[in-house]
């Protein structure tokens, strides 16, 4: 086992898949000579050359569309958004082309492509650079959506995403690129659509993903000090959703909180709650709660931004609330 950062795990996944399949290439802003804005493509240009590690001008619609068009011809592009905030510029390409072409052409054309990059708030970037995009993409039939929180998951799931014949949105987190973890030396992949129990517990189910995972694990640590055993389920894939993993846990604990780094209104958190009430209503001993961003555009000022974020303390409060425990 090697200890890698998430950025290195992502780099290794891309490197291995590019070695495995000549059709795989990486395209985006600063992915080549600059080695990636967050160094997730470090060394790839040197290894594979400019034919397969392709710097673009600042034209998200352009290179997202080029990736889609190349995928329709049988190539397997990895398109890096410097941040998913910029994917909003290319949203039409993903919504109307990547997600729909297979269905709309009755299967004549497929779009095997990965769009990847950092998602959600980092630190004091202001409102336009601090947004989570999973609700937009997970809403669309025809896409798969992944959000990773550990080096092991990042590498295994990115390799699966690159090999997948469908368009995949692969969400990373800017503040987590340096998170370290064990990664096997040997080849492995992780199946898309499978959640992972990051910590077992029997009192409350805490459903989370992406940047919510470390916050949820700290929440569980705080809860444990008060004798509360929290089960942390990392969804890892947001579409398709591993409903069984969520429901099985809720049937065991009878209580659930969804903790995530996104606004509360609509979105994946609401989808999780909808499924719990539909499939485990009779098992619930308390309403399912959300702990997430406040429902405001992100302010720049540090104190204000911190108020908007979910924290282990807020997570603990929600856990205690579903247990009807005071303070």
């Amino acid at each position: 086992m090697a200890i890698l950062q998430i950025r290195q795990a992502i780099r290794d996944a891309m490197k291995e898949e590019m070695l495995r399949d000549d059709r795989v290439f990486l395209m985006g802003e600063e992915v080549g000579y600059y080695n990636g804005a967050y160094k997730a493509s470090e060394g790839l240009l040197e290894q594979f050359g400019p034919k397969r590690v392709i710097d673009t001008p600042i034209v998200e619609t352009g290179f997202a569309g080029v990736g889609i068009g190349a995928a329709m011809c049988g190539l397997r592009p990895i398109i890096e958004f410097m941040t998913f905030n910029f994917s909003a510029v290319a949203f039409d390409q993903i919504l109307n082309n990547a997600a729909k072409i297979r269905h709309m052409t009755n299967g004549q054309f497929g779009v095997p492509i990965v769009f990847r990059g950092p998602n959600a708030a980092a630190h004091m970037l202001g409102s336009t650079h601090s947004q989570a995009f999973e609700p937009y993409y997970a809403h669309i039939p025809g896409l798969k959506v992944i959000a990773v929180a550990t080096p092991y998951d990042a590498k295994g799931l990115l390799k699966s995403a690159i090999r997948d014949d469908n368009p995949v949105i692969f969400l990373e987190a800017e503040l987590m690129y340096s998170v370290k973890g064990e990664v096997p030396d040997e080849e492995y992949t992780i199946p898309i659509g499978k959640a992972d129990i990051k910590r077992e517990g029997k009192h409350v189910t805490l459903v989370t993903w992406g940047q919510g995972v470390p916050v949820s694990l700290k929440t569980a640590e705080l809860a444990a000090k008060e004798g509360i055993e929290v089960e942390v389920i990392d969804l890892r894939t947001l579409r398709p959703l591993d409903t069984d993993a969520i429901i099985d846990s809720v049937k065991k604990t009878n209580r659930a909180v969804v903790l995530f780094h996104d606004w509360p209104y609509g979105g994946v958190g609401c989808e999780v709650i909808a499924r719990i009430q539909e499939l485990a209503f009779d098992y619930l001993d308390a309403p399912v709660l959300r702990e997430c961003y406040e429902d405001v555009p992100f302010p720049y000022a540090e104190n204000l931004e911190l108020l908007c974020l979910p924290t282990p303390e807020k997570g603990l409060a929600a856990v205690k609330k579903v247990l009807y425990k005071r303070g």
Partner: protein
Amino acid sequence: MTARAPKKSPAETPPEAAATADSVVSPDATASTHAAKTAAEIKDQFKAQSKDEVLRDYLGMLRIRRFEEAAARAYTRGKISGFLHLYIGQEAIAVATQQAIEKHDRVVSAYRTHGFAIALGSDLKACACELMGKSGGLVGGMGGSMHFFDKAHQLWGGYAIVGNHIPVAAGHAFASKYTGDGAVTLVFMGDGAVGIGPVHEGMTLAGIWKLPIVFIVENNQYSMGTPLSRTLPVEDITSRAAGYGFKSDRFHVTSVAETRERIGAAVKRAREDNQPTLLELITYRFRGHSMSDPAKYRQKEEVETWRVQDPLERALLALQQLHGFDEAALEKLDEEIIAEVDAAYEFAAAAPQPPPEARFKNILVGE
């Protein structure tokens, strides 16, 4: 190559060719008025072509026009729904495109696409089925008029969000360069598309990366109901080519042969030199933007004026004046096409709708 005929400004437009005050481009300035069209003019235009070639081009265009006329009738009778954009007046471009390309090249178009499908060899029955949302349609009834795709016949769309197919087409050309497959991508758009962002971005990348692609603007004078003078800051769309490092060409579409030659030159440049070209093909649609558009923004006189340029009518005159086709012979040819078109629509009318489970297919692979 340079644009053939200088455009007249609206102020210079003679009264007999009066377009609406807002119109920017006039019909082919070298064409005389309809009534004065002489045998000499037709002879001059078609002298290099054999009878068989003129006949082939004429029938190719006529087949599209009859199909489109039948589509309009079916729409009026409620057999076709949704948005229906007809290609009447622009047929020569699709016919010329088919002649200008090789078997592995790709044609990408927007939502006025029936003509390309027909010219490229798509089954008329499958086209009619698609318009009616039937299971035998080109895309199984999943797309309709605006989303014709027929990979087996080189038709790669079929896109109805204006301009969003331009980067995708650049991606096809990128793939050709990446794999060395030797294919050229020809991507078509209307004059109404040239202002939207994806067109600029797609062209920028094609220019930087020297992709084997031809960008073709079918300038039919109107983006929906708004004339060029109110949607474009310049009259000459190809003036943009310089900003991308492209070659360009601009001309009135009056015959299949000339259109084929000039598209062909751009295809050659793409294939042999990886040099993109921007073409502006000046043409005219004789129907409204879509079936719901009565085209009240233009006058009948304007439409009639443009008929002097109609490549279908010119080919007809060439057959009559140069190759001895009489009314009876032409009637017979027309009847054969009408019979084929009618049979396609009758087939489609009787064809089954897609099965209920069809809506769940092809959303994702492996599900």
